[in-house]
């Protein structure tokens, strides 16, 4: 199920425009929009960048397998341009790296089909895994099937199955390096086994990593094969585009997938302190509200996020309360939220909501059971960048030994390490702090409005992503899964 949510005008404008102009022009349009901050928030930026990359790849002159290095280079260059445009929007780099991963994987898949890759694993198996995903999906999540079951992307998995992944991972906690041989065998036999997907994925990834490490330096994935066999230089563009489209679907579905975890984290009669107003967070709470009765303490996040936060709390004027929500809440169900449900506010569905000023966090903290936050970007070492004030809240929670849980789509996970966290933080308009007309203050005091905060990994207890839950210490595994070991320097 793709939620047809409304985009902000600038994003809608761009998404429409991008299909009709040349990729280079589209890049410049996006550059302008990003610079003017017409497209903000990680989600919208991610959507715009994905769409741009789709356009870029479909117009790129490198279409053949043998030219894949050229395509990778072009995409990387584009990525560098975009990252330079808005260096603090780390999600740009994430998306570009994901797309680079898609291209590399296509190369690898095709090479292995040809029989050149002498490694025991490859695209075949990862395909099989998607079939497995698909069948698992159909049971739990009928509306949200992946668009292309045979795309050969091992990463393309969604909610229902991920849940199980996450569970199994949580159970084991320790990362067990899979034995490739073993897994191959197991994978080829046990198709319907849902846990197979993950193993296979790791398997496929490993092969991918090994392949890359061998292939990339000499830059010739297509040349070696040519010497051996009557080589068909396959057109990989179509597959790459499929891969990017899947990424777009992932961006649409992410809230739903994250929300699927809500019931395991929010329990009856709990008091949950919430910082942030992101749609992911909202969907998470709404989903929980279907089954559970709990209290939400919203932190106002003045001044940058206070309006959005209030909107979450405010009774809806333009959206009516979803019909039958109340009844449904009595009969627990596993269906995804409808669009109307996503848009309903917490108060409208009967969740007791308390709005507190930022200064009262410490005072209220002792009363809450857990703290829930959205995030702007998650970094490799488990730290994150999010709404200003989050660090104080997290530190305060730590003082009270209250768990801090962060919900986020996996697309926000960045492989970067925060060597200089300050440089990743955006500073916003000073006028949101104080009116500019007030000359007595404006002329005499320095005024600063950091819109983001750096929260070190120690202060976060758990990350819930659309591919499962992770502790900050284990995030690096997810980074490897998402981006492989290829090191694309975009900054």
């Amino acid at each position, binding site marked *: 199920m793709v939620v047809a949510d409304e985009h902000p*005008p*600038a994003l*809608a*404008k761009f998404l*429409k*425009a991008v299909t*009709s*102009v*040349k990729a*280079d*022009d*589209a*890049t*410049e*349009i996006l550059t*302008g929009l990003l*610079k*003017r*901050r*017409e497209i903000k928030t990680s989600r919208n930026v991610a959507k715009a960048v994905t769409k741009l990359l789709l356009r870029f790849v479909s117009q790129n002159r490198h279409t053949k397998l043998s030219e894949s290095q050229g395509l990778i280079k072009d995409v990387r260059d584009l990525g560098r341009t975009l990252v*330079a*445009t808005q*260096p603090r929007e780390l999600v740009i780099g994430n998306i570009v790296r994901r797309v680079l991963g898609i291209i590399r994987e296509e190369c690898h898949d095709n090479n292995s089909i040809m029989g050149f890759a002498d490694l025991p694993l490859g695209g075949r198996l990862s395909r099989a895994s998607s079939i497995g995903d698909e069948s698992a999906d159909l049971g739990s999540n009928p509306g949200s099937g992946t668009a292309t079951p045979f795309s050969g992307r091992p990463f393309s998995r969604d909610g229902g199955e991920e849940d199980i992944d996450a569970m199994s991972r949580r159970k084991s906690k320790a990362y067990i390096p899979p034995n490739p041989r073993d897994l191959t065998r197991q994978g080829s036999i046990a198709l319907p086994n849902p846990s197979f997907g993950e193993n296979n994925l790791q398997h496929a990834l490993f092969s991918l990593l090994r392949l890359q490490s061998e292939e990339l330096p000499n830059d010739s994935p297509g040349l070696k094969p040519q010497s051996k066999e009557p080589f068909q230089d396959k057109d990989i563009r179509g597959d790459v585009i499929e891969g990017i489209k899947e990424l777009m679907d992932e961006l649409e579905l992410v809230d739903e997938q994250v929300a699927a975890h809500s019931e395991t984290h929010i329990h009856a009669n709990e008091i949950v302190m919430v910082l942030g107003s992101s749609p992911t967070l909202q969907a998470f709470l709404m989903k929980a509200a279907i089954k559970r009765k709990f209290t939400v303490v919203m932190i106002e996040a003045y001044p940058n996020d206070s309006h959005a936060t209030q909107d979450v709390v405010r009774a809806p004027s333009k959206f009516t309360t979803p019909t039958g929500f109340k009844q449904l809440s009595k009969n627990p169900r596993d269906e995804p939220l409808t669009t109307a449900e996503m848009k309903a506010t917490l108060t409208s569905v009967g969740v007791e909501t308390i709005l507190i000023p930022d200064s009262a966090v410490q005072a209220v903290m002792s009363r809450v059971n857990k703290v829930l936050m959205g995030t702007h970007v998650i970094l490799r070492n488990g730290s994150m960048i999010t709404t200003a004030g989050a660090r104080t809240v997290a530190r305060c929670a730590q003082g009270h030994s209250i768990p801090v849980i962060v919900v986020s789509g996996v697309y926000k996970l960045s492989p970067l390490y925060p060597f200089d966290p*300050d*440089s990743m933080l955006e*500073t*916003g*308009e*000073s*006028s*949101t702090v104080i009116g*500019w*007309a*007030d*000359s*007595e203050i*404006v*002329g005499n005091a*320095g*005024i*600063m*409005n950091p819109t983001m905060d750096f929260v070190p990994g120690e202060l976060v207890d758990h990350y819930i992503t659309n591919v499962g839950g992770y502790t900050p210490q284990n995030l690096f595994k997810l980074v490897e899964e998402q981006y492989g070991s290829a090191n694309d320097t975009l900054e």
Partner: protein
Amino acid sequence: MAPPSKRASAKKTGPLEEAPEALLQAVIIADSFNRRFRPITLEKPRCLLPLANTPIIEYTLEFLALGGVEEVLLYCHAHHDQITEYIRESKWSKPSSPFQIRVIYSPSIMSVGDVMRELDQSRLIKEDFVLVSGDIVSNISLQGILKEHKARRLADKNCIMTSVLREISPDHDSRPRGENALFVLDQNRERILHYEYLKQSDSDFPLLLPRELAKASPTMHFQQNFLDCCIDIVSFEVPPLFTENFDWQHSRKDFLHGILMDELYGKTVYAHILKSGYAGRIQSLQTYDAILHDITRKWTHPFSPDTNLNQQTYKYTRGHIYKESKVILAQSAVIKDNSIIGAGTSVGDKTIISGATIGRDCIIGKNVELHSTIVWDNVVIGDNCSLGNCIVANDAYIGDDSIVESGAVVSYGVTIEKGSRIPTTARYTKMSTKKEKDSGRFTQVIHSKTKSLIEYEDSEDDEDEQRETDMGALYPPDDESDYSDISDFSDDDETPGKRKKGHTRTSSESEADSFFREAYNSLLGALKQSHSVDIMILELNGLRMSANAEFSEVRRATAAAVIAYIVSKITSNENTSKVVDATVEKLLPLFNRMIFEVSDQVELLGYIQTELVGKERSGTLMQAVGMKLYNEDLCDDEGLLTWWNEGNGPEGETPEMAKVRDGAKAFVKWVEEQDEDEDSEEEESEEEDDE
């Protein structure tokens, strides 16, 4: 109304899909029509000067892009070649630009009014448009304002403009010094009922409001605390209004004031008072400094240096410090808060930079102190210098041990000798043009290095200059000292604006006086630009009705204007009668509309007589005018003789007036005789009198 964004996307889909709705257009006036940035603007137009190391025009264009504008008409005059070149090379001319930009140059553009008239003729405007000048810095979104404007237009057909205003406290740094305007707003602070441009010097100047105003709206807000950044949403009906009122120069003082004063137009203007966001206009060096200050301190976010609007590489660090890559700082150099340093700049040992803006490729020596200094590109500053809040333009060289005080301006390529001390009021330039020599006083300083240096000083001895100095402005010698000249042909002393200014200063001014002033200016302007008499009649009628003036006032104004015009035209005795004849003949329909009775004739002649007092050849003129009026049947015997015999003008006879009257003696005598004889030999006698 469909949201503008929708239309924007329609445009971007290329020429194949013609947008059904009209494009959102914006008109940029990339000329300030004043000389406040002299001498810097001798070499570069104001809109291309760097502001936080990005040309000012970029901020304006980004602001329009943010507002969803789809077509930009950029009017320029001074340095139009540079502006055209800049726009052509910029990203705004690429297909990816959010709008189409057209640079229009016309040599006749001398004021905002001229631009509007040009616009009216060009027929490029189809819909309501955004009117800004080329030096706006703002991060507000126009979309909401446009929406409001459109809604208002539907409700009130007469609404022709929405102006964006910002409240500001009286002693705010960004408030333009020496400029003040009073806005009278209605109850809800939405409609602008009246606008009055105030001069600092005459603070006890009585405010005149149209009588109807109080009747129509019993509650009014009088607000003087507005920062008017001249961002207007203007109806397409406005350019024709400018054509109609050819003497309107300035969009505020003339247009806004005029349109609101005149009941006949029946037009309404609304204000949008900003509640959030930043908007400012670089009107003077003082506001330039203030806006730079705001940009550095992130008030204009996202338009701050680290957004890198112009392909820079600025990075932001805490304390509002912006550094581009490849900046070389000595270990012991200190960079304090609110500083901007461009690429390739090197800073020497123990140098302190606090709150300064430094461009690219500058070399700052050792032990230098820069406090709030504005340094542009390629500047060399020697060791042990100390610079205050001054501007150092591109390629300037400041020798070792120099001191430049706050407020000084060092223009392009100027070399300041070792050990100099540059005072607050100094302005140095290498440029010297003939024009400047005419209007300003120059001290030429020849330095040992044979680099000539010209101290630029504008010698317009206006009291307003004094005023601006008194205001304690950062840059006291704002050489364009008189705001009212903003729209003038700055070197032409004969412009209506100046004369108007003169009249404004007369302390006790009644409504009649104000009518007289307006009518006089409009007529004289019309005569000079040889507009058709129909337009003059229309104009005058409009003025008369709006001011509720008597015909006697109309006659007085006409007499004054006509005489002033004739006097200015006459160069020798020979062409006196020719000029008089031509003028009066041209204005026949006008005179016909103001003379009804004998007493009117008498009065007109009286006014003419009064006006002629003290003028050269007054007697001859009196006779010529009187005769012409008589010949054209504007005056009959009775009127002429009554005037003659009454012996005193409306204000009593003075010796000077008697002198004027005596000039017409021969003619009157002749008329008297004619009256008595009732002879037929008119032609002959006329010839006699002609000599």
